């Protein structure tokens, strides 16, 4: 694979240079053994490795808390990232602070790397408001539910950065199902032609709700889809935090250096159902889940850190306690959180004031007043 690509459409791009490697990049065995690869240097110091581990633990704990909150009726629905912590946390870890992340709706791990308060995201799932974090403060765009559509926003943002001479990169997350939608393909087309600094990060978690990858695509791998747009396709073991980090870092820095966009397929596994509303037992077996559990990303880095004496029982306990505290803070913020003022519904539709918005706002205000009177009368 070469890191430099001649301009798109020139007919001079060697397609072979864009092809993904035959085997996904894999650096860390489940037992924690590290196989270094000079093509994909990790370059994280000991402290950063421990920090990566700690962040994955926090992610898993808050993810569990969100599921619990849904089970207790506090969230309408929640899409868990259990099993995908490495794919999310390690890829986001490979970015510079000023780089932008465009998530789908499952990227709790990437959000935690960006210090987005998970409670702010969970308001979407509780239904108190649609989003509550400032994307500019965290360089973390809004969660996007329509599949793959955010790939174009990430591409446009990257086009803008390049036009502005600003050396930032955008990373957009979507799933294996998302690669069947049109927008990611239009995004790769645009990004290829414009040489936009955007990395398309596909978490191949094997299922789009219930539909397995075999029914999603006839492509050799999802990474091969990049080739048609003149992008290199990378492939990594997405449950291997160090491989995910190294591959993402390589694609991101390549884009930053002006060599254009890339696609990464991170092979992972969605350990939970699609969302809390889904029943995964209808389409996959316990045996399959048990096999997938053996590739757990957190256990893998833990084993590595233990082998190297970078982690001990006391630290593990401290991390678990900290994760529990943060989960409790999320619970406190979400549990029985009241909805806002219904009149706010009219406040953010347009920047410019509009008479029709004002009139309908007044209508609702009058309805609310009547309702309050009725309630008062009944009491």
């Amino acid at each position, binding site marked *: 694979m070469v890191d430099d690509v001649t301009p798109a459409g020139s007919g001079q791009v060697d397609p072979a240079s864009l092809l993904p490697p035959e085997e996904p990049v894999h650096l860390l065995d489940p037992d924690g053994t590290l196989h270094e690869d000079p093509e994909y240097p990790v370059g994280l110091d000991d402290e950063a490795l421990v920090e990566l581990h700690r962040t994955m633990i926090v992610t898993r704990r808050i993810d569990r808390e969100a599921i619990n909150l849904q089970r207790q009726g506090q969230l309408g629905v929640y899409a868990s990232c259990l099993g995908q912590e490495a794919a999310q946390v390690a890829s986001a870890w490979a970015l510079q602070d000023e780089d932008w992340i465009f998530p789908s709706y499952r990227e709790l791990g990437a959000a935690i790397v960006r210090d987005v308060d998970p409670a702010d995201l969970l308001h979407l799932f509780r239904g108190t*408001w*649609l*989003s*509550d974090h*400032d*994307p*500019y403060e965290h360089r973390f*765009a*809004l969660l996007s539910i*329509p599949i793959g*559509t955010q*790939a*174009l*926003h*990430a*591409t*446009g*943002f*990257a*086009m*803008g*950065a390049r*036009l*502005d001479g600003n050396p930032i990169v*955008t990373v957009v997350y979507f799933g294996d199902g998302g690669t069947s939608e*049109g*927008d990611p393909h*239009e*995004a790769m*087309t*645009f990004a290829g*032609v414009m040489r936009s600094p955007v990395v398309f990060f596909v978490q191949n978690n094997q299922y789009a709700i219930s539909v397995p990858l075999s029914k999603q695509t006839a492509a050799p791998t999802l990474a091969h889809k990049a080739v048609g747009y003149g992008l290199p396709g990378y492939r990594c073991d997405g449950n291997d935090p160090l491989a995910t980090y190294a591959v993402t870092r390589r694609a991101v820095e390549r884009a930053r250096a002006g060599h254009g966009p890339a696609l990464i397929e991170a092979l992972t596994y969605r350990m939970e159902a699609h969302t809390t509303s889904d029943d995964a037992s209808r389409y996959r077996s316990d045996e399959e889940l048990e096999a997938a559990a053996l590739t757990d990303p957190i256990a893998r880095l833990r084993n590595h850190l233990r082998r190297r004496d970078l982690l001990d029982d006391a630290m593990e306990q401290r991390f678990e306690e900290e994760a529990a505290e943060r989960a409790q803070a999320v619970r406190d913020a979400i549990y029985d959180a009241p909805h806002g003022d219904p009149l706010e519904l009219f*406040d*953010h*539709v*347009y*920047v*410019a004031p*509009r*008479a*029709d918005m004002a009139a309908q706002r007044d209508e609702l205000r009058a309805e609310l007043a009547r309702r309050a009177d009725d309630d008062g009368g009944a009491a």
Partner: protein
Amino acid sequence: MTVTLAQAINRALADAMAEDDRVLVFGEDVGRLGGVFRVTDGLQSRFGEQRCFDTPLAESGIIGTAIGLAMYGYRPVAEMQFDGFSYPAFEQLVSHLAKLRNRSRGTLTLPVTVRIPYGGGIGAVEHHSESPESYWVHTAGLTVVSPGTPEDGYAMVREAIASDDPVIVMEPKRRYWMKADVELPVTAPPSSEALVRREGTDVTIVCYGPMVRTALDAAEAAEDEGWSLEVLDLRSLSPMDTEAIVASVQRTGRAVVVHEAGRSLGLGAEVAARVQEAAFYHLEAPVLRATGFDTPYPPAKLEQYWLPDVDRILDLVERSLAY
């Protein structure tokens, strides 16, 4: 100075680009070719390929990247080459461009202008004569305007680019070559104000975009019948200037709404609803609609039978007066 609608819009784009480096113009064939209607003619040579550029042929891509560029801080002006080709961008327009500000609780501002040449009357092949304005008007978060004169072509495009809200400019393609004697730059009242283009006392003709000229022709012809028609140009379809519509109908007691789009859930339905809500006791007759039919847009040789014209408008005026 005589200018066409196309030239007026071209000048508006050029002036906006000259004033603000953040204004970008892009779409299919808008660069070197200057657009299939030449509306972007000369912009690339004057402002460079960074500011006016051709995109790949993918409409969802055009609107989706416009959103990203706007989030970055640019003021994109995206062209949908034809009305019927705006449909691939429907999701980006409806689920994202229109909603992102609201979803972000006012944090995101998307000053995106989307220009769509629309409507029939030019003998075009299938999918090139559609009137999709109701889709956009029905979508909260979008502002939708349609110029009916070259002056408004200039003023509305400048206003759209200056707006911090996403604005869809529905450009009546059959009027691109309509001329006016006007010195550019020209100013006009805000597009949110409907304008009486011709005063009259018997029936209010509510129209916009391509039908403004047709309605004025109908008013001219109506004189022979001794009917005095008031022509009200809505200009902005969302928001809609209900006050101006109601004020006119209160004077005339009658209204005929004219648009090319099919009748059911066309703008005429909304105008009729607002008029009967606000001016019920002033009405001498039901609000009538001179529109396209509820069929797919016809083949070019049949469009003369499908499109509302002076005769269809006058027939309805006569019906209205007969009440």
